[in-house]
């Protein structure tokens, strides 16, 4: 099946070359889908409908199937993230050590629930199901850098300072 003109990605976007390389490495077989989605999300930060249409067309998969896979797995995002991302681990050890309290504080202080991005696009809050640093619980990750073993007071101060709005 030839690639349809309207679903072909912009040829001058180098990020697509990276994604193409992943698909080619796996011979554009249907099982390349999840690896390709990872590559696309790494390149663009999220997966929009145009990106998904390009991928479906290149792997010769029905768009519905691609969308079904994207929505099945928690890791894939359909919306862009804010300038900064705060990930709060909600694994068992982090739950026992009070990360639910941290999420409640974030809701009060920044009016954000997990999955939300602030209206000024500054901060996205995400919940992660265990990053495997359980021995350092409770754990949170401002822009991917792991912070652990902090009391509630220390943790909130770190987040306020990181966002540059300490009272």
């Amino acid at each position, binding site marked *: 099946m030839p690639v349809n003109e309207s679903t072909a990605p912009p040829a001058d976007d180098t990020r697509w070359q990276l994604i193409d390389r992943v698909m080619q490495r796996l011979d554009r*077989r*249907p*099982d*390349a*889908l*999840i*690896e390709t*989605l*990872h590559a696309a999300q790494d390149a663009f930060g999220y997966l929009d409908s145009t990106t998904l249409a390009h991928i479906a067309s290149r792997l010769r998969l029905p768009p519905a*199937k691609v969308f*079904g*896979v994207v929505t*099945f*797995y*928690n*890791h*894939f995002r359909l919306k862009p993230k804010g300038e900064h991302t705060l990930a709060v681990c*909600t*694994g*068992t*050890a982090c*739950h*026992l*050590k009070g990360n639910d309290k941290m999420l409640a504080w974030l809701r009060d202080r920044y009016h954000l629930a997990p999955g939300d991005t602030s209206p000024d696009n500054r901060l996205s809050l995400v919940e*992660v*199901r*265990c*990053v*495997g*640093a*359980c*021995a*350092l*619980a409770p754990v949170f990750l401002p822009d991917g*850098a*792991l*912070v*652990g073993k902090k009391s509630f007071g220390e943790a909130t101060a770190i987040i306020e300072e990181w966002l540059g709005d300490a009272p």
Partner: protein
Amino acid sequence: MHREELAARAAEHQRRLDGFAHHILVCAGLGCPDNEAIIAALRRAVAERQMENRVLVRKAGCMGLCALGPIVLIQPGEIAYQTVRPDDAAAIVASLGQEPVQRLLLPPDLPFFARQHKNVLALSGRIDPESIDDYLAAGGYGALLTVLTGMRPVDVVRSIQESGLRGRGGAGYPTGLKWATVAKATGDRKYLICNGDEGDPGAFMDRSILESTPHAVLEGMIIAAYAVGASQGYIYVRAEYPLAVKRLRLAIREAERSNLLGRAICGSGFDLTLQIRLGAGAFVCGEETALIESVEGRRGIPRPRPPYPAEKGLWGCPTLINNVETYANIPPIVRNGAAWFAALGTDRSKGTKVFALTGKIRHTGLVEVPMGISLREIIFDIGGGIPDGHALKAVQTGGPSGGCIPADFLDTPVSYESLHELGSIMGSGGMIVIDETSSMIDVVRYFMEFCMEESCGKCVPCRAGTAQIHRLLTRFQERRATAADLAMLESLCDLVKHASLCGLGQSAPNPVLSTLRYFRQEYLDRMVPAEPDGEVQP
């Protein structure tokens, strides 16, 4: 690359290492943040004293005691320092060959280290995970060479059967039996999969093994592929473990360059290629048939078993699936013999097991102990007990699929059978210590919320049952539950356990059932008094 070349390369690397009078090993796992800054500071301190030719600063894998990390180990002398910061670098380098830095010193006889029995973790924290030469110099890939040069596939399978090794992913199926089934299966194509989708929230054994000794997992997989006749393999790892993925990619590349993977491995007639597949955040993909669906690029929805993957797995071909820790156990078994392994542990649970100690315990971290050790020894001797003057209430094993073992059973020897009898499971090795400040209802509701969200939705008992159990547990948490709710909770747990398609649903009621068994009073205390007859129900 042939045996002699590998031996020469290992010897050459060992000579280089022996040329340094002091080795400073810095834990560079996820559990020791800031390790890069510490390594840089140590290297600067070494350069300032112009000791570059005598002191080697290296990154190493996890040393286990995450609670007191970052840990730095000085060799020779086995001097371990705790909670090291970059500012400590000058003092550490100045003390080399002199008195150790007392304020950072970990007591050398600390039971945390002294009481462990390291087998899978033997090289963890002792070698650079990003150097194949380090692994080779430590005797790595020796077991593979033994297999390729002197054992037939059937001999390898028999040896694993004789060792008594059982799957370390949770279910405890005899590994040798699984290998024998795949080896006997007919078909030109067979596959090999490593299950690194460590989904239990509260467990990190596999992450640490992949980060610390990725080549040991590869070596176990290559031996397994040879034994069962597979020529293509996949390692399925969680995307939430970026460091493990990075080190694994590097290890595969280095193994390919050294002809330990690829065509005609080490001059034998045996070929194997290995590829990584990233998980994407779905707990159900730890279930073997869901994992296969995911490797095939689809939604991770379990298939009915039988047929088991050993007969009909990836793309309908016979497929061997083992967990990370199971593969990491293979090289030591080949090296030391099946009898050595079978002598460790209990009658039916052989060898050692890695546990992740977390929750309300002083020495949180990663430990490896012989099967049959008591929970008390793990928690109080090795783990240092419960901090802040609190008392132990329960130990949770097996995560969302396991149960809560109350303090009364602390003297139980840890084995697949004993934990099952107590209403829990060995699971993959997460051990979460709960003190009296936590409500069991809260813990159980947390696990049920997890299972509800992670249910794939294919079968009704799991999809609807976990949601209803969660709703009932919420009523208990809010002290609104009635006697009818309790009866419904027990009946639903029974239904979901027996009618669900896969392990996720079948085991989801376990935390509820075990707490109903041991902590029933907490449920009863949260019920509203029965309404008198005749009153209108709201």
